[in-house]
């Protein structure tokens, strides 16, 4: 059952400017799909499906942080849950450390649960209000029956120390803690089984700026100490860029652009990435930049647009005179500049031109659809 995947991971080094990607995937997602059925009527028949994740290929290297960024409904959270096998995919494969875990169930999956953990967004919903904090953190040890009671308590105390909590906090209930502290508790709970990868699902979105910085720094230092791999999901590009080595930008269930964080900032190629970058309000009133205001809302994943699903909102599409190919063909993730040593995958038919066209576009604003 746990046959190693035939495509064994071989360390391949892609040298880039300033960064080096050591190609050593711990997790590989291959053509991952998840459609949620939409039921209606008395008989609860499936009348439509919501395509949350629509064919995603991603590799997460050992020890790196892969950032997953996108707006609500882009499928980023679903990818995290699929990776952890908390929900079952409708297509594609999840390969963890060379083993296909897509079909594993129950007992067979348990050993992998120890290696993959999650940190949640909402610090209030992520802890059982009736469980003492110490018990929450030690829950993984109890479930996997690791150590004696004394050993477990020691491990919990160590974890609490690691994330900056006091020993006496173990005997309190979650409601006695602030949001930032609860997030630390959640991180300690995820760490207790010494996982290899942690899915961080918007871990700082609900926190105040000053607390957010504390938690981000904590996550970074823990990664250094334990060689953790992170899948960091967030909607805030500033945060994602700060913590990630590579960033995947998602739109409507597909990856629009995937590259390292320097490249993403310096030379984004997907029109959506460009718009997203320009939409972030920067805390510097002196910066003047070309602002791309996308019109309209993100379309419903129940009935996504054909071809490139970004085309109805795409400024470049309108700028180029609505080319047919964007409506008919789904663009593949391809590197527009394969020889520059930077891995930059862009799912746009006009990936070679986008940067130049942005300069030319006088009024960077899509026409109302």
């Amino acid at each position, binding site marked *: 059952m746990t046959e190693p995947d035939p495509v064994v991971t071989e360390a391949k080094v892609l040298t880039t400017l300033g960064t080096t990607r050591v190609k050593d995937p711990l997790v590989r997602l291959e053509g991952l799909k998840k459609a949620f059925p939409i039921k209606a009527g008395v008989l609860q028949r499936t009348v439509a499906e919501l395509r949350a994740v629509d064919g995603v290929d991603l590799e997460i290297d050992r020890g790196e942080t892969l950032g997953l960024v996108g707006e609500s409904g882009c499928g980023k959270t679903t990818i995290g849950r699929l990776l952890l096998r*908390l929900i079952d995919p409708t297509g594609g494969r999840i390969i963890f450390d060379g083993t296909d875990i897509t079909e594993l169930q129950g007992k067979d999956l348990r050993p992998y649960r*120890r290696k*993959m953990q999650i940190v949640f*967004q909402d610090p209030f*919903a*992520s802890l059982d209000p009736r469980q003492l904090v110490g018990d929450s953190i030690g829950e993984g040890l109890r479930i996997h029956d690791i150590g004696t009671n004394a050993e477990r308590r020691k491990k919990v105390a160590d974890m609490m120390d690691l994330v900056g909590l006091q020993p006496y906090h173990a005997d309190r209930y979650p409601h006695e803690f602030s949001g930032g502290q609860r997030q630390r508790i959640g991180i300690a709970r995820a760490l207790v089984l010494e996982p290899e990868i942690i899915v961080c699902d918007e871990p700082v979105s609900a926190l105040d700026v000053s607390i957010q910085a504390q938690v981000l720094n904590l996550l970074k230092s823990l990664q250094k100490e334990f060689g953790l791999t992170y899948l960091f999901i967030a909607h805030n590009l500033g945060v994602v860029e700060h913590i990630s080595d590579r960033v995947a930008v998602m739109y409507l269930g597909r990856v629009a652009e995937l590259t390292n964080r320097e490249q993403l900032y310096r030379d984004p190629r997907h029109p959506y990435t460009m718009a997203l970058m320009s939409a972030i309000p920067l805390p510097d009133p002196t910066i003047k930049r070309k602002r791309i205001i996308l019109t309209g809302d993100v379309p419903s994943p129940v009935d996504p647009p054909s071809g490139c699903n970004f085309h109805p909102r795409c400024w470049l599409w309108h700028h180029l005179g609505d080319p047919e190919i964007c409506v008919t063909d789904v663009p593949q993730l391809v590197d527009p500049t394969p020889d520059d040593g930077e891995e930059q995958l862009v799912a746009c038919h006009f990936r070679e031109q986008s940067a130049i066209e942005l300069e030319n576009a006088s009024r960077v604003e899509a026409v109302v659809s």
Partner: protein
Amino acid sequence: MKAPTVSKAKVAAQSAQTSGSARSAKLRETTRNVLAQRSAQVGLLLLMFLVLTAVFADVIAPYSPNDNLNGPGEPGRRAEPCIHLFYELPVVSAWGCPADQAETWLGTDGNSRDIFSRVVYGARISLPLGPIVVGIAILIGAIFGAIAGFAGGWSDNILMRIMDIVLSFPALILAIAIVTLIGNGLYNAVAAVVIVSIPLYARLTRSAVLSTRENDYVTASRALGESSSGILRRRVIPNSITPLIVAGSLGIATAVLEVAALSFLGLGISEPTAEWGAMIGRDFNSIFTRPLLVLAPAFALTTMVLAFNLLGDGIRDALDPRLNR
């Protein structure tokens, strides 16, 4: 490196000892919150009064509930028992009845049994009935609801449609039908009321489970490798229980009335057992001629329903999270 590890372990050991007290502290806090409610205070007071009555019935009641004060086996008693308090109250000097007369407070019923004694002893049957009925109904309802809510799919559909069918009948009519089917008697009456109460608790549990299981801490448990039954037992059920406690404490009053109604119709407790509902039913026709026969047990029943209702209100208010924040 060694030293801090040791001290940490020590602290951890200490913390383990205190964790029990932290739990009981939470229980104490909840109890305090409940007791801070005025309605709960009154309800509890009334309930305590009733419980004491039931416990010390032997002491309080002057006669056994089934004593025939007029019977052949009662030497020295005349045909008409002497009634105190109401009928002959102006003649307070008559506290002492003639030596050959049995003394009663509220008079006797048609079988020459002391009404007051019967009402006092009735507490022993009527008082535990409500909590027992609700307890069993919650237990079964919670199991159904938890399975339906947690498993979903066809088991949810089947269970909930059955509950809908039960709910579609007026509770009392259905209970009457059930008792008619399975036969009269205290146990059957209780069973019937339990059956008609189950759907309420099943639905409540189901919706509580549905909302609880969406919480991130449940997902976290799953991610840590917890089994479905572990999640249900350790995470979902403990966090779904609050609405059940509230509904249950309010439902006791309804259950009591339903059992009483069955007894009233002669389908529940049979003679000669003293039970308030049955007493009301048996002598209902005498309400104008001998009002105390009906009013005494009715007053007791009303007091009990009021007590449970007030207590239920208090618990609901105390457990309402909106009041705490």
